């Protein structure tokens, strides 16, 4: 499943030949992600932000925090929405216009990884029950696309939300009023981290580049939390996985995820 990427046959054969020898084109181990760099605070006017570079894939996430009227049945919780878009600067194949299914999937998987982990304790983000709650919007903009946008958006989002500041609001006449200059820490409970694996022939490799992405048969994205539990999962691509492969993938995800989580944690400390 290539999501529109076309890789030539020569390159494909080269990748496959190397995999048979236990090697990858860029010299990585099968379970080794690319170098991850995270810079937080890159959009100072946003309440939180992070730039994640995963190899040559780059994503900027910005967090806006603002009061919202809650939906009728969830008036005792704040709102959290993550989105993702592939900017046309990111790749010659990127399209402007309404989001196509692969971009909708990217956005929803990014959102689900954060949301289902319970990363933010939403009950702490209520200004007045049923009247006004705090909304946290984390928008991911892919600026350079070298494969595996799922993980790059996951890392940028987690880092941006982890490092955001929540402005203080007071309710006046049923309306929230911002108290300038006062902030609280976000109510973080855990740090979710996704790890995506591509299946090429019968080989499974972590963090595929755009070339591996273009020739893979199937993929799986598994998000784990700080406790090493699995919190979200998305299979994709035109082939399937065996039961054994899926058990192995979850173990790999938890293991690699814990390394990634340390980088995200450090990104916040280095900022302070």
């Amino acid at each position: 499943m290539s999501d529109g990427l076309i890789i030539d046959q020569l390159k494909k054969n080269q990748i496959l030949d190397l995999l048979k020898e236990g090697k990858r084109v860029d010299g990585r181990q099968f379970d080794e992600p690319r170098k991850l760099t995270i810079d937080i605070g890159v959009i100072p006017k946003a309440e939180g932000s992070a730039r994640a570079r995963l190899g040559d894939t780059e994503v900027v996430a910005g967090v806006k925090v603002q009061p919202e009227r809650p939906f009728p049945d969830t008036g005792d919780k704040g709102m959290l929405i993550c989105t993702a878009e592939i900017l046309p600067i990111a790749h010659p194949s990127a399209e402007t216009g309404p989001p196509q299914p692969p971009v909708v999937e990217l956005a929803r998987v990014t959102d689900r990884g954060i949301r289902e982990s319970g990363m933010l304790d939403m009950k702490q983000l209520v200004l007045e029950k049923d009247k006004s709650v705090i909304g946290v919007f984390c928008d991911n903009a892919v600026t350079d696309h070298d494969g595996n946008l799922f993980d790059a958006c996951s890392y940028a989002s987690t880092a941006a939300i982890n490092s955001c500041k929540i402005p203080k609001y007071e309710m006046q006449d049923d309306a929230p009023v911002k108290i300038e200059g006062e902030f609280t820490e976000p109510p973080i409970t855990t740090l979710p981290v996704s790890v995506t694996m591509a299946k090429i022939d019968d080989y499974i490799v972590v963090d595929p580049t755009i070339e591996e992405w273009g020739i893979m048969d199937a993929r799986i994205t598994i998000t784990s939390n700080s406790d090493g539990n699995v919190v979200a999962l998305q299979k994709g691509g035109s082939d399937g996985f065996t039961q054994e492969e899926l058990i192995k993938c979850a173990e790999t995800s938890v293991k690699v995820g814990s390394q990634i989580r340390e980088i995200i944690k450090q990104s916040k400390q280095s900022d302070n």
Partner: protein
Amino acid sequence: MGGRDTDIVLLDENGIRCDGRKVNETRKVTIKAGVLKNANGSAYIEFGDNKILVGVYGPRDVHPKHMSDTDTGILRCRYHMAPFSVGERKNPAPSRREVEISKVIKEALEPAVMLKEFPRTAVDVFMEVLQADGGTRCAALTGASVALADAGIPMRDLVAGCAAGKAADAVILDVNNEEDQAGQADLPIGYMPNLKKITLLQLDGVLTPEEYKQCIEIGIDGCNQVYEIQKKALQDKFFASGEKQ
């Protein structure tokens, strides 16, 4: 997911679920193949209180032409909910959720369909959810496999769908609507029983690695049960003498 507040007892002291099932029991599944006149293949599936109609058209020409592929056929899937299928009336325009599920189901069916057998053409699978009750994507996938076979599309295997999950701290099979709302995890699975491959897998909610293993195990069991019902539906259509409704 993540344990919303509710008064419902999802699992009682005898290990019985809110709809009377045991933890490893699926809801009642009935499938009827060949229910539509115009479609090349079709199926109607009831999966618990889910009611889904699937129609297949193709292989047929692709418009615009440049969307076709000279090397292979393409599979196109649309999962769609009727406005009256859910509690509060749904806007008829496709939501982002429906777009994602359509894509996930397409990629769950592709491994089963011998696309190379019909290059330059497309097979369209339209899944219409008439009534929803939790687990619609597994039910739609199950029905779609039967409708594809009914249309005579060459296939390597059927894909059977069934979710596993977690509620009241127990691993359960075939998550219903209440369990999806108030439970702890939902792990829909699509499985090809003969080829022993999982082609659809998603997860909402939190599972320990051990629970994750159990869920996959029990989910495959559920898919195997659903598979028998799929095969029976196709036999009834092709071999049974009549009993037309």
